């Protein structure tokens, strides 16, 4: 994982669009709902934050991309007092629908709140963004490239601050 500030500056460098979302919905007993995130054609999305909670502890979550499960099933989606993050899917770019499948396997209905932030890029720029993120995340492997990137980020930051 890289620092939030670096991520934000890289997003700026590659013309990323920050898109926060929040959805609240009720799931009846033994029912399931899907929430889909679909980038417009020619764009790719990068997930930088996910969180949520549910009223009951009988909520489960699967995440799919192109019919493939992205993480192990979360069988007890957090209750109302808990917040969670899913760190394992933050290093991928998605240029098609990502599906969040919420199951309520309990005998009473539950309410789910699910929110997050995605970054959207034109596909060509998305690759550049991901390469930069990886270069920053792999500091010991290529310190020269990392230093160059950090200097570039610093210049971008100075530019942003200079305009404020």
């Amino acid at each position, binding site marked *: 994982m890289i620092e939030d500030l670096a991520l934000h500056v890289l997003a700026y460098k590659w013309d990323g669009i920050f898109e926060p979302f929040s959805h609240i919905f009720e799931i009846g007993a033994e029912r399931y709902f*899907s929430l889909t995130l679909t980038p417009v054609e020619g764009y790719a999305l990068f997930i930088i934050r996910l969180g949520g909670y549910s009223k009951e502890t009988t909520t*489960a979550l699967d995440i799919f991309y192109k019919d493939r499960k992205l993480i192990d099933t979360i069988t007890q989606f957090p209750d109302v007092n808990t917040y969670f993050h899913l760190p394992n899917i933050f290093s991928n770019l998605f240029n098609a629908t990502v599906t969040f499948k919420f199951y309520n396997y309990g005998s009473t209905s539950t309410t789910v709140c699910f929110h997050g932030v995605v970054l959207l890029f034109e596909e060509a720029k998305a690759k550049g963004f991901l390469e930069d993120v990886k270069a920053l995340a792999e500091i010991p492997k290529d310190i020269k490239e990392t230093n160059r990137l950090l200097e570039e980020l610093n210049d971008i930051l100075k530019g942003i601050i200079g305009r404020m």
Partner: protein
Amino acid sequence: MAEETVEINGRVYKPGDVIREVDRGSIKYRLIYGGRIKEEDRKRLLGERL
């Protein structure tokens, strides 16, 4: 109301129906009613919870 349907705000939805759609230009969100949990999923989820 049929077993598989659900009523939300006075409207009846069947499995596969889009309950909510939000188009933000570069990204689209859809909330879709799935239906009743399949028996194998219910067993899997209860089993994995243990």
